[in-house]
């Protein structure tokens, strides 16, 4: 019988990383949540049972939705349902009270027809993941002071916050890598000058600087432009981190043989920087970028929370939380604080993902 030779497999760098990453359970969990959040953000209108700007005076300050499985007589229903709610005024407490009308059950349905939207400005639809028939409302996270559905606002707010986080990080990475690469590769005067510039920017504490710059944004600008301005400010303040890290790596690479070889082969400087050196840093760049995302989300939330970042009517998580500073509001309507929990989960997820990637890419570091 011929000896079965074991096949020697060569795994690429990427496959090695992936293997290591798979073993990290927290990392996988983080990845899963991040992908879920990204999907929800992309297809926000589909996942939102209500238009996040639609007001409804009769449903103001509704608390978390009560979902029933047992009806009035104690019968169990497999499908969950809700009752229609009528707003009344409590003479004693001066609160709005919502009295359920138990005469009719409204079952929660999947893939319902609801408010109309245009996805990415192209596809028109009115399909939503879940909802209830007309006559009752399904506000899973309750409503705010104008009766707007909090879940929908969190989803659309997430769109803005996550977009700023991801896009901002990516642009930061590009700028930081380029500048760091150039600085490290050319060394000498170029390096000195760039380093001074970086140090100057880093002289400022990030949050106060962002606060100061954001306070200068004229509110006459449209919300979209303000969004871009806020992202611009955050990128301007944060690219220095990436630049320094990349510079360090590039400094150590530039004397290595493959660079000499590329030069001898006639490669231009820019080509060498991008094609050779930076590609070696790829995993590092990816990790730092991923870990920067939650920081940007946090920065944006803090700014908007203080009223300096995203401006209404655009929503972001920070904007939603700015209503929750008022002690009286959160005392009476604590569900207003829900966006904070969502931020927490998002940041946790990105942190897990980033940590997992880092451990996978560089297990000895």
């Amino acid at each position, binding site marked *: 019988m011929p000896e079965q030779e074991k096949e020697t497999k060569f795994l690429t760098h990427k496959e090695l990383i992936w293997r290591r990453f798979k073993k990290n359970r927290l990392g996988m969990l983080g990845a899963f949540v991040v992908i879920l959040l990204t999907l929800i953000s992309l297809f926000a209108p589909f996942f939102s049972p209500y238009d996040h700007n639609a007001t409804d005076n009769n449903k103001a300050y509704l608390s978390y939705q009560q979902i029933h499985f047992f009806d009035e007589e104690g019968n169990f229903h497999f499908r969950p349902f809700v009752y229609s709610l009528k707003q009344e005024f409590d003479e004693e407490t001066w609160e709005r009270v919502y009295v359920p009308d138990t005469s009719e059950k409204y079952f929660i349905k999947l893939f319902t027809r609801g408010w109309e939207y245009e996805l990415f400005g192209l596809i028109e639809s009115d399909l939503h993941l879940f909802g209830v028939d007309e006559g009752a409302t399904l506000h899973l996270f309750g409503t705010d002071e104008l009766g707007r559905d909090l879940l929908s606002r969190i989803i659309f707010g997430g769109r803005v916050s996550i977009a700023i986080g991801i896009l901002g990080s990516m642009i930061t990475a590009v700028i930081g890598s380029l500048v760091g690469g150039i600085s490290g590769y050319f060394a000498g005067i170029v390096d000195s000058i760039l380093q001074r510039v970086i140090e100057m920017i880093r*002289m400022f504490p*990030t949050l106060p*600087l962002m606060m*100061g710059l954001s306070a200068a944004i004229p509110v006459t600008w449209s919300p979209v432009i303000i969004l871009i301005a806020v992202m611009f400010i955050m990128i301007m303040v944060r690219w220095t981190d990436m630049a320094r890290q990349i510079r360090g790596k590039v400094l150590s690479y530039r004397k290595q043989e493959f660079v000499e070889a590329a030069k001898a082969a006639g490669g231009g400087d820019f080509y060498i920087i991008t094609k050779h050196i930076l590609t070696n840093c790829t995993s590092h760049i990816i990790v730092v970028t991923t870990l920067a995302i939650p920081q940007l989300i946090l920065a944006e939330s803090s700014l908007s929370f203080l009223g300096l970042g995203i401006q209404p009517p655009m929503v972001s998580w920070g904007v939603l939380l700015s209503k929750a500073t008022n002690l009286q509001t959160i005392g009476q309507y604590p569900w207003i604080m829900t966006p904070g929990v969502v931020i927490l989960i998002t*940041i946790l997820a990105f*942190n897990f993902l980033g940590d997992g990637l880092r451990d996978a890419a560089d297990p000895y570091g």
Partner: protein
Amino acid sequence: MYIIPMLIVVSFVSFIVISLPPGDYMTTVQNRLTSQAGMSQDQARAMAERMRSQYGLDQPFMLQYLNWIKNIVLRGDFGFSFQYNRPVSDVIWGRLGYTFLIALSAHIISVLIGVVVGIYSATHQYSFGDNIATVFAFIGLSIPNFFFAIVIMYFLSFKLNMHVGGLFSSEYVFAPWNWAKIVDFLQHFWVPVFVVGIAGTAQNMRIMRGNLLDELQKQYVQTARAKGLTERVVIYKHAVRNAIQPLIMYLGMSLPFLIQGAIVSSIVLQLPTTGPAFYNALLSQDMYLAGSFLLMLAVTLVIGNLLGDILLAQIDPRVRYE
């Protein structure tokens, strides 16, 4: 060194940033006159106009900036705060004290607790206690500062019915420093320290745990155990000593970050520290105050980094030849 010209640029940028929003401090005054003093629009406006020329706010921008710099350099005079009607230095120093106290306390406590819990976690790896600590660490690192402040405020006010806000109850503000006053102060003080320190504690805990775990794998630990040293001596006398070094190195550098973290939390908790003052100065274009704050914070950062570098160089000789 490059410090001086950079400080000049910093101050210039700060001043520009502060004066960008439209209007000036007098519009804030006018606003207040109509809403608080019940003055008619006309009178409020006229009064604001007069005060504007009185304070030289109608002068060209460069002139105002140069005046400011001249005064700082020649007389240590950081300008005048319209909001508090006092020299800026008075406003800042008063509040800076409490800010540093909070940041420093938070820093020290976060190091202490972080190290202790980190050691426990590493030595009882994967135990129930370790898992709980790890979960808390992750949450502590990821929770937004201001959100945490809100949640704490909510619990204290509505679930525990405590009075939140300020550093003293009203009876103790002017009381001499007796035992009762200290107790009252601590009852208020622990909240901002807790909020500001949570992230630092989590960070320190994770680093300590990671470092110690690494150390415990190393050769010399095995050797020490083989030599017959007790586990406790092995851990504390040797491993922990080595594990804690990186933490110490970065002590100086994290102070500025704590000051920043204190800013947002103290706005939420409404403490008499730099955070709310800076924020209000930004909103009301109290430019000398806001500009000076930015300048001060940048200086703190620079000093912090410098200290960190020095500390680093002392501890790790490898770094000196960088």
